[in-house]
């Protein structure tokens, strides 16, 4: 927002701010001048609204779990016989599990971002836009809310690790949860950025399909990223999602009791010109992209009208 209010010391208290002579029967409430505390309250309430809405929407919780479960149990089981030759005895479901952990988060995060399009259509966006707070607070609250909701959804998929032979190791669970939060945040930021421009739900959904699905397939969520044909390897390294799937897989595979050959074949790791990219750097790529998209989203929503 272009304009910064001069800091005016207004005590946050119940007082009658109006000039004398009023017949007001009750104490009037003075809206205090803009402050950091006020911005934090705004961020928190926008975040909380996402959680409340999510908790009300049981159907959404179920439907957004549908896709990951299909990939994990139907595709994972169906393909396991033909994949058996290449997995060195590792269950195919175990292999695709990290990809599915990402998938669960991605689609929920996109859904959360889509609600900004609904908010515009149903007018609620305007209620937030005329509030005396920075637009950045609204957008940030929205992204954090979307991230939280999506990560919660991810936890459900995380909880079934045992069904696909992944042990419940606290460190791994924490690592995965942190990665899910990060991914969810970046995807929501992407969605909110898109929602600033795309004002109709149909177009937004079409865009999602156009962007998210290819990103998911190219990321290596469903295949190892080594020994790919050149063109696919290039696309894979350019796909931001690659850098969320790979550390996720690394976290899972670190706690699997499997042969060295299997590890090498299934978790080769992302390389840049032969250099194995460290997990922390990969997470950094996702974070930087997320923050960049958040910044664009804030700039877009801060423009008047």
């Amino acid at each position: 927002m272009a304009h910064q209010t001069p800091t005016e010391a207004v005590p946050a208290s119940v007082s009658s701010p109006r000039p004398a002579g009023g017949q007001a029967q009750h104490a009037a409430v003075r809206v205090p001048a803009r402050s950091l505390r006020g911005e934090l309250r705004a961020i928190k309430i926008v975040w909380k609204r996402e959680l409340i809405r999510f908790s009300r929407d049981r159907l959404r919780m179920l439907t957004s779990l549908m896709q990951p479960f299909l990939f994990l149990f139907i595709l994972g089981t169906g393909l396991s016989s033909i994949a058996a030759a290449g997995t060195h005895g590792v269950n195919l479901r175990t292999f695709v599990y990290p990809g599915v952990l990402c998938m669960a988060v991605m689609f929920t995060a996109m859904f959360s971002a889509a609600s900004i399009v609904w908010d515009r259509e149903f007018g609620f966006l305007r209620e937030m836009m005329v509030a005396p707070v920075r637009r950045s607070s609204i957008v940030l609250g929205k992204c954090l809310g979307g991230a939280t909701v999506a990560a919660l959804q991810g936890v459900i998929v995380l909880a079934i690790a045992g069904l696909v032979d992944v042990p419940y190791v606290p460190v791994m669970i924490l690592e995965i949860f942190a990665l899910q939060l990060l991914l969810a945040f970046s995807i929501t930021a992407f969605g909110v950025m898109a929602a600033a421009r795309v004002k109709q739900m149909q177009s937004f959904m079409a865009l999602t399909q156009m962007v998210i699905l290819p990103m998911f397939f190219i990321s290596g969520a469903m295949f190892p990223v080594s020994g790919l044909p050149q063109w696919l390897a290039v696309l894979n390294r350019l796909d931001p999602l690659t850098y969320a799937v790979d550390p996720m897989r690394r976290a899972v595979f670190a706690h699997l009791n499997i042969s060295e050959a299997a590890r090498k074949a299934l978790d080769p790791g992302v390389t840049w010109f032969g250099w194995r990219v460290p997990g922390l750097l990969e997470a950094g790529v996702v974070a930087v992209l997320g923050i960049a998209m958040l910044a664009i989203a804030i700039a877009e929503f801060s423009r008047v009208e």
Partner: protein
Amino acid sequence: MSSNGDLDVRAPAVLVDSLSKRYGDLEAVRGIDFEVLVNETFGFLGPNGAGKTTTISMLCTLVRPTGGRALVGGHDVVGERDEVRRNIGLVFQDTTLDGYLTAEQNLRLHAELYGMPRETVAPRMQQVMEMVQLWDRRGHLVNTFSGGMKRRLEIARGLLHSPRVLFLDEPTVGLDPQTRSSIWSYITKLKREEEITIFLTTHYMDEAEYCDRIAIMDQGKIVALDTPQALKESVGADRVQIHTGDDPAAIEALQERFGIQAGTAEGAVTFRVPSGEEFVPRLFAELGQPIKSVSVSRPSLDDVFMSYTGTTIRDAEASGNDRNRNMARMMAR
């Protein structure tokens, strides 16, 4: 204009100075000037597309003016946007509630966005919800509310942070007559209970009667501005309608004896005279034609609108500038 005697020494609640808004080559608002006094109820009356919503959007900092300036509560709507926003409450034409939250959650969200002091939120929330009689429905999802209930809740929400100026953009549009009148009874009650300036737009003539002053807006300009009473008086003449056995003869007699141009409207001989009630005895004595019935009516705001714009508000809407109306609809989004 208001119950307060010391109005004159205060700054106006709203001050508008040659304000204009242009969308491409369409001039939605063409340099308007007016002032709204503190605690006044001020109405903007005009057909859809007259520029009412654009004006209200500029005053609420939602649309940036292309010319002139406007102060709300003494603050510039462009330069001091946040100051303005803190001091105003808004009720839009279409609902801006979150249907998936309860009534109470909607209000709480508003309180947080406006940074209301925490200890004031609960009592104030109860107060405004009781005012619109929704306190016992506070735990219900807004999606289950009727159109009238939603509008009431929006009025309560608009008041929650005790704004100095409450903007109501067509507060009763799309509601059935009974709900409309109940909304008005809340607004009337609000004026009694709170010290607040109300700025509203409407295209219902009868609603303009509730205002202390009204501005008639047509094609982006203010064509008249005064109290409803004064506006009606400015039209001057009362409307007299008579039923006779022979209308053409009566019309001829009116012309001959009194020099009055009469016509037929609504199946009766209709004409205008300055003070209709005093004219009626003369009419009976001198017309020389049998009269079956007579009715005299004071000028209505419809007549006022007609005399300033040359058209009725309904005709203006029917044939009005379509582009302008589409623009208004777009802006309402």
